[in-house]
């Protein structure tokens, strides 16, 4: 793997027809319902997200995020209930601490902060969900395809 | 020849063996004609079975060499590979390389009374030898054949369709038992080692071959000795974690033996001098 290839700015020609893949981990009780509402309300948002429903933002193991980046996600969005609204009372509070640390750690080793994002979206916030996705997609698009931490095939011998 | 390369093979048929659906038998055919003909094995040997994208696992070959053109593996759902196989459908392509390991000492068994003692899925490697011996070409080479087989419950008995055939044969002394019966079970109830004592085969000119859960093997060996069997007359197979199958990766090392290369079949006499590390 050539280190330089990871430092190059994304090829502009590629960028025009390139669409980022965003993995979105959405909590079952709030954000997933929020995404649902966005759909039912026919609010347009970019189709770049691949949604994975999880019971609670507290279920999101940091390895879920890192594995997503390894396996080709250009961005990761984790979304849960607003503080105080957690179905399991404190899952999102615990998650919040974890995410704060993880975000800083990834940024510290040189991964663009926009690649990994977090939001609180309630079941009634269909519009907010659409806006969050729009923002994330736009920001990741500006960065270009993910290069760091992406698992590439090894060279033969 | 690269010994690590698996041959592609198709799962032609999947048979559900147990009520709990934790054991399935897979009928497997090599895609390549030449491999199909060239893959010669003996009862007791195993193969490395690959589920591509998962991993490889050592599985004993349960079919007999007298069954031509295909292999059978009976597999209990345990780890990653076996779980993947259980999720497989007929027609899936897997990889098979081998055969590996020694085999049951067939030549030494000729002219002798043979006693098979199996428990649960432990019947799988024994079945290869049973069907080999019962084959018309080979049956005359062996004297009396006795099979004692048991499982936890009637639903846990494997190869049910074949057990019936063995039971019907006049040249087989067949005993089947379960640890715990159910409403429909009319047969014997009791642990395999106890049934062994009840049946009490004579050690005279005999070889006993046993395979099953470790705790069963332990008591079977004790009881066999009580019946007068010498350690040389008791044969069993060992299980160890394996990776390469060819004595290099170091994983299945017990004492100076590699189970994949020097085993998996050992006489109790051989086991007695090996470290108890299995």
């Amino acid at each position, binding site marked *: 793997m050539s280190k330089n290839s990871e430092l190059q700015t994304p090829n502009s020609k590629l960028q025009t027809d390139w669409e980022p893949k965003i993995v979105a981990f959405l909590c079952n009780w709030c954000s997933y319902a929020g995404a649902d509402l966005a759909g039912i309300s026919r609010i347009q948002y970019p189709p770049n997200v691949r949604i994975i429903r999880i019971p609670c933002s507290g279920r999101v193991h940091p390895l879920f995020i890192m594995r997503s980046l390894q*396996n080709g996600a250009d961005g990761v969005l984790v979304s849960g209930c607003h503080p105080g609204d957690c179905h399991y009372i404190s899952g999102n509070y615990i998650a919040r601490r974890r995410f704060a640390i993880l975000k800083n750690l990834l940024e510290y080793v040189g991964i663009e902060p926009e690649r990994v994002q977090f939001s609180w979206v309630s079941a009634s916030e269909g519009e907010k969900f659409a806006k969050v996705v729009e923002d994330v997609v736009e920001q990741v698009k500006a960065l270009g395809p993910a290069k760091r931490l992406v*698992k590439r*095939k*090894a060279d*033969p*011998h | 020849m*690269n*010994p*690590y*390369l*698996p041959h*592609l093979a198709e799962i032609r048929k999947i048979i559900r063996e147990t009520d709990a659906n934790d054991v399935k038998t897979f009928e497997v055919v090599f895609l390549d004609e030449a491999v199909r003909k060239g893959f010669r094995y003996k009862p007791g040997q195993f193969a490395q079975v*690959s589920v*591509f*994208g*998962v*991993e*490889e*696992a050592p599985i004993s070959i349960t079919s007999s060499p007298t069954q031509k053109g295909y292999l059978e593996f009976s597999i209990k759902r*345990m*780890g*990653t590979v*076996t779980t993947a196989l259980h999720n497989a459908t007929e027609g899936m*392509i897997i*990889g098979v390389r081998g055969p590996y390991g020694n085999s049951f000492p067939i030549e030494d068994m000729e002219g002798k009374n043979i006693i098979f003692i199996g428990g649960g899925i432990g019947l799988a490697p024994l079945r290869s030898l049973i069907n080999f011996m019962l084959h018309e070409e080979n049956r005359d080479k062996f004297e009396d054949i006795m099979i004692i087989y048991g499982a936890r419950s009637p639903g846990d008995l494997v190869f049910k369709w074949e057990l019936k055939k063995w039971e019907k044969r006049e040249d087989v002394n067949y005993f089947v038992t379960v640890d715990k019966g159910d409403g429909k079970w009319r047969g014997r109830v009791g642990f395999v080692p106890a049934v062994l004592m009840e049946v009490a085969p004579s050690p005279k000119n005999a070889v006993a071959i046993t395979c099953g859960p*470790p705790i069963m093997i332990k008591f079977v060996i004790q009881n066999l000795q009580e019946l007068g069997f010498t350690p040389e007359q008791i044969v069993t197979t060992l*299980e*160890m*974690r394996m*990776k*390469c199958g*060819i*004595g*290099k*990766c*170091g*994983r299945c*090392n*017990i*004492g*100076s033996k590699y189970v994949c*290369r020097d085993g998996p079949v050992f006489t109790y006499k051989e086991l007695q001098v090996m*470290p108890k*590390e*299995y």
Partner: protein
Amino acid sequence: MSEKVIQKNKMVDFLNELLKAYKVFAPVKRDHIVSFDAIQSSGEMLLNYLNSRIPPKEIFFPRSEKMFEYIRDDLIEVKEVLPSEERKVLFGIRPCDAKAILLLDKVFDSPDYQDPYYLRKRKETIFVGMGCDRPQSTCFCTSLGGAPFSEEGLDLLFTNIGDRFVVKGITEEGETLLEKYEQVFERAKKSDLDDKLNVEKEAVNRIKSKIALEKIEKRLDKMFEDSFWDRIYQKCLGCAVCTYLCPTCHCFDITDETMDTSGERFRAWDSCQFALFTLQASGHNPRMSGKERVRQRIMHKFNYFVKNYGEIACVGCGRCIKNCPVNFDIRQILLELVS
């Protein structure tokens, strides 16, 4: 076989010539760590070094390597991935490590199954040894049938005698090199050869760790159940430093890697010191604790391997001693076992 001399300032020329015809692996220093790596220019090679931290086994048996590839969706073939058979020179290997390669050969080139990944890299390699004129305090090669200037497994042997090296051709391959590059070599004078003998003698004298290992195999035959192991294993942390840095350890794991529709099978170093090494799918683990695992390491090297291949699987390089995080010293274990 013939002996020549090369002036140290001619080494650059010699290496440059070699680089034209061969891929050359030589000791290099990166981040304070000496290891063997392919060099592009003669200047990269380290001439003054004790020994490499990672043994040169990694050239033939790398930490991880691809074995084959396949397409998961459309399984019609398994594509073998073999290393290329390029002509290589392994320059500057120490005699202990050369002996270790011979031991690895026994495993990977056994009569029943030959390991193509190892052998293809191994076969076309010329071993240019650098005699060990400064054995370290942790060296105990002489207890294992080796010596700082042992010729076993080498094609050429260099001996440092101040401003020049005496170079001895050991095999035909080595002799061919001496002839092919005769322009950089000079005839060895009697005094050079005398100097060489002195350097060798002095090196042997420097080795202070001596363990009488003739009876170790027999001794270990009776030790499996001994309480000795309960005592010695306690400080072991269960990491793989000793086995990964051992020039004779060869255990490996095999795994599949998948990406989209493509799949690859790899092998990678593994260690009997890891708890999961022998863990079976059923949950049963024949080597439950650190005690069994430390015992396995000692038994395998000094008893099991001997029974299988007729030699002890240790060359006394001292890497496991120097690099152990808790200073677990195999020499102490061995001394206690033979006393």
